[in-house]
């Protein structure tokens, strides 16, 4: 009887625990923000993950790069006015493949499509490549300018 009660209790608590787990708040920092074409709602997560994002031309939505300890998310709002405060720390959680962010004391949470997900080490490597490429471009311009000055002398 005692074992049966224990089993029932576990079975009763498990879904709550799973739900709580699912709603666990995560923290990250927004490092980039831009306005970009909105994504059609029915083509959100799966289509963007497959590289066939359905975009709504004409309407612009905010896109954020949200960096967490392990994963970097590119999330995109569903309308142009879904602006998130750019605080040092942004708290969010997942629900139905969407990122939910509560803005201040707003009653509702803002829902964002997940456009991309990258492991942080991989994202950092990409950033290093991008910075190196940019430095090379700047150095190239510098050399071009110096050559021009020499040619004029």
């Amino acid at each position, binding site marked *: 009887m005692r074992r049966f009660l224990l089993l029932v209790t576990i079975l009763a608590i498990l879904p709550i625990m799973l739900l709580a787990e699912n709603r666990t708040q995560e923290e990250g920092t927004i490092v*980039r*923000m831009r306005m970009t074409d909105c994504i059609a709602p029915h083509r959100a997560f799966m289509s963007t993950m497959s590289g066939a994002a359905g975009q709504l031309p004409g309407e612009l939505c905010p896109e954020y790069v949200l960096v967490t300890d392990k994963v970097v998310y590119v999330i995109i709002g569903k309308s142009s006015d879904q*602006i998130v405060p750019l605080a040092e720390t942004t708290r969010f959680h997942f629900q139905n493949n969407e990122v939910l962010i509560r803005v201040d004391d707003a009653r509702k949470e803002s829902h964002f499509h997940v456009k991309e997900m990258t492991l942080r080490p991989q994202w950092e490597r990409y950033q290093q490549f991008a910075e190196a490429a940019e430095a090379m471009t700047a150095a190239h*311009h510098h050399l071009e*300018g110096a050559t021009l000055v020499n040619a004029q002398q």
Partner: protein
Amino acid sequence: MLTFCGAMVCGAFAETAAIASDATFRADVSEVRVSFSTTDENDRVVDTVLPSDFAIVDQDMVVRDFRSFIRSEYSQLDVVVLVDTSESITPRFQQELAKVLEIIHRTGGVPEESFSIVSFNDVKPVVVCEGNCGKLKLDEQFLIVKSGGLTPLYDSMVFASRMLGRVDDQHTRKILVLFSDGADTISLKSFTEAMDSALENDVAIYSVDVSREPHAARGTMALRSFSANTGGRYFPVEAGTGKIIDAILEDFHATYTVAYKLPNRAAGFHQVRILPTHNLSLQFHCRHGYYYPSNSGN
């Protein structure tokens, strides 16, 4: 700022060019400076702002670490009032314009020599007065200008921006008060060139919309865009003189300048936005970008 960052970068390179006849020096432009004012949800100026209240988005990079954050050291205003005097428009705002002039003079902060009026209603803009506007009677002055149906708005804006740009003084806030319906019928310059000219010359545009349907017209969108992108403000003419003047003077007294490390050296136009970090009702008014030159060195 490289809200008035444009001034900073251009200034650095102008200096380099001046010395270039004897030797070549290359300056490393690594800092962006942006001046801005702040309003709340009621469009009232917020006098005290902290660095933790906002973040800057330069291109798409979010910047929260600032090298400096100070109240802007503007000591004077340089104002050009640019007036569309085409027949259909003039009667509707002349009274407001007269009040603007009167209040600006009464309020002080604008020395006589720093105040000009330019009108346009033919193929070219006309300087109505420059440095002696206080002594003129408006009615008489606007009678001098020929009546016509043409509206060279963009050309006139370029003209007025260059006029303001002649004074290269970081302590002077350059203001263009534009009375117009936003329509242009004949300019050689484009909308983009008019905007660029204002940005290059560090001019903030305060537009006063005199169109009949201020919320529908295409011209209204153009006026809003000019103001938003240059750190000025937009008003329908019905807002009244007091509000326009208050905005200009409040912005003048409650402007901050923030400096930050240049986030990337991509040549061309860098779009800049200032966004709140916690209070989403705050609106930050600044120029929406600056040009980073392609030969800036490293």
